[in-house]
């Protein structure tokens, strides 16, 4: 069956069909991400109403996030250049720019996975006294934990209440670390905590309220961070698959109907710009503010 209006515009809409299709789809995508962004607003406003709570700021790797911002904006430009090359009938330039787009999308995902890994291997131990010890290489035995504590402010320990909310969650936060630097305590002096010969800490489980890596369950911030960036990363993967199809299989359609391929690339590009657009909001909200 021949699909109509792939290149020429319909009389009543003034558009070729895929253009309307992608915009309707993007409208639904706006609602999907809109729902998650409103969840972010809701959680953040709710956190603000808890006395003493500091929403974690600058706890993610800002340089990596910034590089990823540049990578994604760059790929938005290369995808539009590949479309322009098709419009000009320059097949080699199309391959060049589209190949570059794919390379940039892969770069984004690789950087993102390093960021995720850093969070998954970074632990926080919430003590019953309200202190939090953060560090790496956590091992759990029957009655105690061992952890290599973070260097820096408060030697990885910060004062705060425990639980899902409360200041303990802000231990990972910039503000809280700064605030506590003045009266930082050596974690080894805390009840049930002792320093071992190799510099790691031994923490008796009887003093531990809970412990977790900085994954979604660590606190509200990480929950919404992984939800938003995870869904965004899935969109990057989906977009890269579609653009990859144009890159590897585009020549088949190009020989038959180059304008049709150009329109397909434009539609794929529109989705790609949308993914970039979501990141433009995600980066400041999660990394900077």
């Amino acid at each position, binding site marked *: 069956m021949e699909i109509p209006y792939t290149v020429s515009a319909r009389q009543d*809409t*003034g*558009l070729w069909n895929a*253009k*309307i299709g992608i*915009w*309707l789809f993007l*409208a639904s995508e*706006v*609602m999907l991400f*809109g*729902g998650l*962004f*409103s*969840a972010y*607003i*809701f959680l953040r*406003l*709710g956190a603000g109403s808890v006395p003493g709570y500091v929403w974690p*700021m*600058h706890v993610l790797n*800002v340089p990596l996030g*910034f590089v990823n*911002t*540049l990578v994604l*904006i*760059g790929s*938005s*430009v290369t995808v*539009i*250049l590949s479309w*322009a090359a098709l*419009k*000009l009938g320059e097949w080699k330039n199309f391959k060049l720019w589209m190949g570059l787009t794919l390379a940039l999308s892969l770069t984004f995902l690789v950087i993102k996975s390093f960021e995720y890994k850093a969070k998954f291997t970074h632990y926080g131990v919430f003590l019953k006294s309200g202190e939090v010890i953060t560090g790496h290489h956590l091992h759990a035995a029957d009655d105690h934990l061992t952890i290599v504590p973070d260097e820096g402010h408060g030697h990885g320990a910060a004062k705060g209440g425990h639980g899902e909310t409360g200041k303990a969650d802000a231990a990972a936060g910039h503000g809280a670390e700064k605030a506590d630097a003045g009266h930082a305590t050596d974690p080894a002096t805390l009840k049930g905590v002792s320093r071992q010969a190799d510099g790691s800490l031994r923490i008796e489980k009887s003093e531990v309220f809970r412990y977790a890596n900085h994954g979604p369950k660590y606190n509200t911030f990480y929950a919404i961070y992984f939800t938003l960036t995870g869904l965004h990363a899935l969109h990057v993967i989906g977009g890269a698959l579609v653009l990859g199809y144009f890159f590897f299989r585009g020549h088949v359609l190009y020989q038959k109907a180059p304008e049709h391929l150009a329109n397909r690339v434009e539609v794929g*590009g*529109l989705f790609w*710009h*949308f993914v*970039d*657009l979501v990141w*433009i*909001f995600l*980066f*400041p*909200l999660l990394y*900077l*503010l």
Partner: protein
Amino acid sequence: MAHSPEEIRKHVRFYIGVFGALLVLSAITVGVSYIHIGPPESNTGNIAVGLLIATVKAGLVAAFFMHLAGEKPLIYRVLLFTVIFVIGLFGLCIFAFHDDIPALF
């Protein structure tokens, strides 16, 4: 949109310009986030500035990369409804936040 080759080449130069603007705005948004803006003991000022820059960047991407500056009316109509519904969604969230359930707090 009928494009002559000259028009497209002109567009390409313009896209590169938009790309430059986006890079500059990205650098500004990072720099500004380390400077406290607005009332003390509150980051409202920083959030406002950060979101303002993000909105300008999103506007550049939507208007030029997504060709929304100069699109057909039907697309605008679809997006008008999208904007209304998104604002409604955010509004619901704000209303819900201000509607405390006394038994829980």
